[in-house]
C-alpha cells in the first residue's frame, strides 16, 4: 500500500517537473539564417551541428564558401561528412588549425539539442503549409 502511494507520488512529481520544465524553458529564438545539420550526426552518435551564418558572414563574403568551396544553397544539400572535412574540403578548408580552429573541437559545432531536423532556422519555408501532395502519408 505504502509502496503504491509512493509510486504514484513519484510519477506525479515527475509529471509536475516535466510540466514545470516545459513552462520554464524559453521558446526557440535562434538566429535567423543559422543552419541545423543532422543528416548523419545523430545516426552516428553525435549531437546535431548548428552552423551560425551570421558569424561567418562577418568574416567572409558568401562567395568564398558558396562559389569557391562548393557549398550549395540548401541545408544538407552539399553532402558534407567528417571525412571530407578532415581532407580539407568544405568546413575543413578553414577549420584546419590555420585559418580557424581545427576539427578536434567536436562540441563547438556539434552543439545542437537532440532530435533537431536539418533546417534553416527562421526560414520562410518553415512557416508555409506544405503542398497537399507532400502532406499525404
Amino acid at each position, binding site marked *: 500500500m*505504502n509502496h503504491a*502511494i*509512493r509510486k504514484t*507520488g*513519484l510519477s*506525479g*512529481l515527475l509529471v*509536475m517537473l516535466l510540466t*514545470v520544465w516545459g*513552462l520554464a*524553458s*524559453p*521558446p*526557440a*529564438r*535562434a*538566429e*535567423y*539564417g*543559422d543552419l*541545423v545539420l543532422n543528416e548523419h550526426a545523430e545516426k552516428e552518435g553525435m*549531437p546535431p551541428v*548548428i552552423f*551560425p*551564418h*551570421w*558569424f561567418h*558572414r*562577418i*568574416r*567572409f*563574403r*558568401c*562567395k*568564398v564558401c*558558396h*562559389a*569557391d*568551396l562548393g557549398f550549395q*544553397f540548401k541545408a544538407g544539400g552539399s553532402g558534407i561528412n567528417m571525412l571530407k572535412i578532415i581532407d580539407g574540403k568544405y568546413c575543413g*578548408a*578553414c577549420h584546419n588549425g590555420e*585559418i580557424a580552429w581545427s576539427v578536434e*573541437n*567536436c*562540441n*563547438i*559545432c*556539434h*552543439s*545542437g*539539442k537532440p532530435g*533537431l531536423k536539418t533546417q*534553416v*532556422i*527562421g*526560414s*520562410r*519555408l518553415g512557416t*508555409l503549409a506544405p503542398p497537399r501532395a507532400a502532406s499525404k502519408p
Partner: protein
Amino acid sequence: MNVQMPSLKFIVLLFIVAALLLVFGVVHQAGAAERKNPNVFNRLLKPKKPFNLPPAKDGYHDPEGEGVAYLQPPKEAFKDLVPAKVGNHVDWVRSLESGKITPRYDRLDPKAKPIVMDLNIVREVKGSMPDVAYPHKQHTEWLDCSNCHPAIFIPQKGANQISMAAILMGQKCGVCHGKVAFPITAKTCRKCHSRPKGRKGKKAKAKKAASKK
C-alpha cells in the same frame, strides 16, 4: 526504520510539489487576470519576441553541451553593426558599405577585392506594386556571378519568370531571401519594389530632353 526513511523523503518531495504548484498557480492567475480584459489595447498584436539570444538560451543549442560556452553571443558581435528590423536585426549591406564589417572575398587573401558590377535590372511587375529595381552592385559585393548565373537566373532579358509565390517557396530570389539574406515580410516589400511605376529612366529623360531641342 528502513520503512520509515523513504516515506520521510516522500513527504519532503510532496512539500516541493506543493511549493511548485503554489508558485505556478500564482503565475498562472496573474496571466489569467491580464487576459480577462476584452478591451485590451492592440488585442491581436503579438508581444515583441526577444531576439539575438545567447546560444545557451536560443532553444536550439544544448545548454549542457560542452562547446556552447565557447560560442559568441550574437548581441556582442552585432553591437556596432547597422541595425535592421527583420532577420538578424542587422542590415548586412549597409554594415558592409560603411566598413563596420570587412569580410574576406578570398579565403586566404584578406586584401582581395570583389569584382563589383554596377548594373540595375528593372523588372516591370504586374499589379499595383512599384517596379523592382534589382541592384547588381550590392549583390556582387557578396557573391560571385556563378552563384546565380545561369542556374538560378538565366542571364538574358525576359528569360526568367519570377513570382512572389516562387520566391516564398524558396526559388529564384527566395534561394537566399527568406533564408539567410533579408526575409520577405511586410517590412521589406519596398526594399525590392522601390521604383515607382511609370518613372522614366535617365536615358528616356535624356532622349525626351534632346527631342525638345
